[in-house]
């Protein structure tokens, strides 16, 4: 079990101060670094990316008094260095074999939890967002590109803005579905326990 973020208030404040003298900007930089670290760890195949990101931050904060006086340059570079070190410590990239890929197990007759959750979560979206996400994922290949172009035209936004909007909606939906699935699973476990 890796360490969760366990910074003291003072250490955290010192860390922010190092990132930027303006606290608000420092806060934003901190968030970017943490999000970036999570993506890096995920990309390296780690399933516990969030705690590894916190581990990096802990280590940097812990050594801040040594680093700060002499360090020249973008702090992000230092965070990356520590992240690389942790990756090396963890040994090798976590690869999984193709045959262990999760296969779709649901059938039309008995919808999976995810499917059920998706139906529920779609209802939580506003009609416009629902329309957007469903339309956006129509077609493949050049048809998809053409479809996006037309959607962007209709919405009077650029194709890139559409892409970002669709992604954010999808992320919301994805988060909702994951939580819903987790709830269903927990319910199932507790109902089994009741039997």
């Amino acid at each position, binding site marked *: 079990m890796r360490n969760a973020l366990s910074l003291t208030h003072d250490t955290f404040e010192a860390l922010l101060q190092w990132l930027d003298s303006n606290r608000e900007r420092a806060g934003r930089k901190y968030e970017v670094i943490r999000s970036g670290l999570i993506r890096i760890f995920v990309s390296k195949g780690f399933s516990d*990316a969030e705690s590894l990101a916190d581990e990096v931050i802990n280590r940097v904060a812990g050594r801040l008094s040594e680093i700060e006086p002499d360090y020249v340059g973008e702090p992000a570079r230092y965070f990356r260095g520590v992240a690389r070190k942790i990756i090396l410590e963890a040994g090798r990239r976590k690869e999984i074999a193709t045959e262990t890929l999760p296969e779709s197990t649901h059938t039309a007759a008995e919808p999976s939890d995810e499917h059920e959750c998706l139906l529920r979560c779609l209802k939580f979206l506003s009609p416009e967002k629902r329309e957007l996400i469903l339309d956006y994922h129509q077609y493949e290949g050049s048809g998809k590109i053409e479809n996006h*172009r037309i959607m962007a035209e209709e919405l009077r936004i650029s194709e890139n803005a559409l892409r970002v909007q669709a992604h954010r909606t999808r992320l919301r939906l994805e988060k909702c579905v994951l939580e819903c699935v987790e709830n269903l699973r927990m319910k199932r476990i507790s109902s089994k326990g009741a039997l």
Partner: protein
Amino acid sequence: MRRYLLGQLDEAEEEALELRLLTEADYVEELDIVTDELISQYLAGGLSVDERERFERVFLASSQRRQKLSFARTLQDYLEEERAATPARSARRAQPRPSQPRRFFKPMAVAASVLLLVGLAFVIWRGFFYQSEVGKGMDALNAAYRHARPVEARVSGLGYAPLLTMRGGSASQVDEQTRDLAGRLLLEAARNDPGPRTQQALGRFYLANHEYDNAIHQFEQALQSTPADAQLHSDLGAAYLERGKAELSDQQSGKGLEDLGKSIEEIDRALELDGSLNEALYNRALAHQYMPLPQQAADDWRKYLEKDSTSPWAEEAKRNLKLLEEKKNDRSRNEQNTLENFLNAYRQGDDEAAWKLYTRSHNSSGNAITKALLDSGLGQGDDATQSFGALNYLGQLETRRANDAYTSDLSKLYAAASSPKRAILSQARAEVKKGYELFRQNRIADSMELFETARGRFAQVGDEGEALAADYAIAHGAAVQPDIKRGLDILARIMPVCEAKNYRWLLAQCLGELAHLQLNLNHYSEAIDESSRALHLAEEMQDWNGTSDSLVQVAGIHSLSNDEERSFDFLRRSLALDDRKDAQHNWGTYIAISFNYTAMGLYRASFDCQQEALQLALGIKIPLYLSRSYLYLGLTYGQLKLYDEAIRHVQLAYQQGLPLANERSGQNMMAMAWLKLGDLYRLSGDQPHAQQAYDESLCLYDVLEFPHYSYAGHKGKFLSYLAEQNDAQAAQELPVVLNLFEENRAKILDERQRSFFFDKEQDVYDLAIAFTSSRMGDSQRAFEYSESCRARSLRDMIRNGAQVMKGDDGLNLRVPGGVEPLKLAEIQERLPDDAQILQYAVLKDQLLVWHLSKSGFTARTVEINAETLAQTVAEVQRRITSLDEADRDGAANGLRKLYDLLIKPVEGLLEHDKLLCIVPDKSLHYVPFNALISTASGKYLVEDYRLVTSSSSSVFIDCTEAARKAGAPREERLLAVGNPSFDRLAYPQLRSLTAAVREAERSAEYYQPASRVLVNEQAQAGIVKAELARSDVAHFAAHYLIDPRSSLSSRLLLAKRQGGGAPANDSLEASEVYRMKLTHTRLIVLSACQTGIERQYGGEGAISFARPFIVAGVPVVVASLWEVDSDPTSDMMIAFHRHRQRDHLPTAEALRRAQLEMIQNENTRYRNPYYWAAFQTIGGDAEF
């Protein structure tokens, strides 16, 4: 990012990307988006085998990603279910895709229920499983270029990939197999489902493959069906942009600039249709950047970034914008440091650096470094001593490197000058400086006074160099005012002195000014000569600004004589020089480019150049530049038919001159504005105001004694009277206009400029012909106007010979003028009894046909517009030469249609027993008259008449009389050239013409035994040329290569000389023939491809390889209209010579008989006009 997610980046790339992830919030979100897109592609089976393997092994290593995949799969399943349950959703977005369900949905709604179910099943199949070939092809194309995009421009349907510029021989970043797959799929799609979408997709493939011509063809084809498709216009713009870039980097011609203009045109059209189209916004910025219009490019990038600030495209946009801004700052920094850098170089004895700085510091008022050193030297103390030291060094350097004594003389004079002399010099220099300040305010007269005073002072102290420079400044002022006589007088006085004293830089300035003055007198040829001399001098002296100025000047002259192709060549050379030029120079460049674009109908591109120029003019603050900028912008608005804006801008141009109304320069601005206001009022339909404006302009130019624009003013008035149908006034104005036209004509001696100029100005004669014929009912005068405007240069050359000149702009012909066209009565008088003429005039909305015989003259009018006629002719020729069976009927129908238009109106007047001379006009030069089919008899025209083609009735008379002098039929000596063994390495695309050997040998059998047959390696240029002059008849069965840039360089390939030599020595070039005097040769047979026409000019007619032979004195030439097939041509030519010699038939009749034999050929294939109708007899009526 995709490569990062799939673990394909090397360490450095990975580090760069991860650092961005840790510093840029947007970048994190972009990675998340690309992650989702990658998952979607995986589920859709859109990844290559390698990618799929990496996706499963690397990408899915973390549980978060597997969760995401699971969610994506659920979402996909849901979408598919929903599509099946409610096809309306799938249909809603499906409209634009032909392969999608919507297209089938509507018919389904009205079909029977069974059909409904079947149709529904099909819809579901299409929606779920079927992906069109176009879709697959585009997916493959995207996959092929996933690591690096193929072109810099944005192409719709192609996703982002970085643009990699590889150094050295790095492996290509394209996945070639997948690209080939894309090509196969898209070509298949084009065959199975042709249509705009397929054409667009195929165009994208060609563009990605750098096959720009094919890409442009496909996009243009697609636009014919869907002209309002913004994306297609943007893609076409991208293709022109990429082709233009490639052409500019080849540094061969200025065609790249033309393509960039076309690119802007298409992209702007795309943005007019859809202002938010990111591809078009992006490409527009790129096109402006390459043109280069830096201010507009920077604005475009900013606009783009307002729409898209986060995508990877935006990153590139930011980089481009930064580069443009850095370049701008760099330029101003460099300008500030020039003197300091020069002094450093001087102190260090770094000649190279010092010379470079010096040569880049020239401008029209002198050299900035020399001036600074002189000013500083006239001061006191160490600085003064050091400045004279530096000046002395500079003088020696200039003498050594440029053989120019100017600075050296100045250095000696200043160093030796006493204090009183220095005071006078100081005062004179201050006056020159002040003079140039006033000059910039367009207070030309005041500035000239100061220059005059300064000149006196310089002369007083023996400073001949600066006195000459002051004289030059006065001449410059005189040219701008304009006071042509004064300018010419001064230059005539000072140029010999500059030459004698070896003041070469000053001489180059004078030559440039002389060109300016000559141009104001409409002396185009002299202007080009003087400007070219200035260019040579500037190049020799490494004066980059001077070189660039001269290049722009020559480009401008070519542009004014309507030769945009040459003009672009010079502009390309100017742009390729160091880009640190001053604003005034750049202003001139943009204006010259805009003129060319306007002439080519690329008004949007022209508008952009003028906008850039206006921004510069606002910075320069010289009234003349501002006035001209507003004027040109106004004219472009006029071309776009936005007359209110146009008139407003021209009024602004007028207002710039108003405060200087007492100055000649101010009056000049006002006169020009009146002239152009006249044009705009006329085009907007306000004739009274137009005529008033023209009168104002003519009056002001009269006051200025500046006749340069008289022609334009009077032509405008004539057109205005025509527009309001004021026949009396029009009839009065017409002779004035035509006289001025002829005056201009006489001033242009170079054939190419003359042809271009009159091709454009042909409309004046066309209007004169139409007016005289239709409104005045005077057919005879209309015919004479027609005769006055055609083949005049050819006639001049037949009479006076031609001089081939080699200039900076390639080969040209110098044509002395003075030969008047024949009047109708003279033509009839000199016309042989057995000949008749059909002469055509293709006018805007009518075709006039005149039939002439010794005793008769009749005119007919056919109502057809020139464009429709040209399209019909082009279509007929396309079908004839396509050889596709499917086109055969179409070709025959076209030939019938042309017969009805061209022959039927005068059919009753034609006499079968007489030779029929055709004098075509414009597009009719491409018509195979011999193959026109009578709708009544079904016969080809050649079956009823022996035909000759001539460029004008007067030329026909000249050639006929030359043929009479060449004697009667007799046994002739033939030179027969067949299948010369040309240089196969130089022309790998050409095949050996084995049938041509037989053609030469068999043809020779009918001629004198002394005839000469030169086949294969025997056909060496030296022998051929010597034999040509000695032979009565010369027959060439060989390859003919057309040089699209200059017909003078087109050539017949001859045998490669043993031991090598330049390729030019292994051919017979048109320019060589123009130099020949073929007094003995009376017939030339050019049995090769397209020897009868290469291009045609509105006035001069057909330009071809036959033409120089006519000029050289050969009265009859047989030549071809299109590329011919060797074997049947060989048979026909042997028959032709047999008829000439054995049956003693004249050339036209012999060719007719040979063609009739082809029409009745046993081999039915050869009856097709393609095989025989290309050949025509050109020239006069000959007995031999």
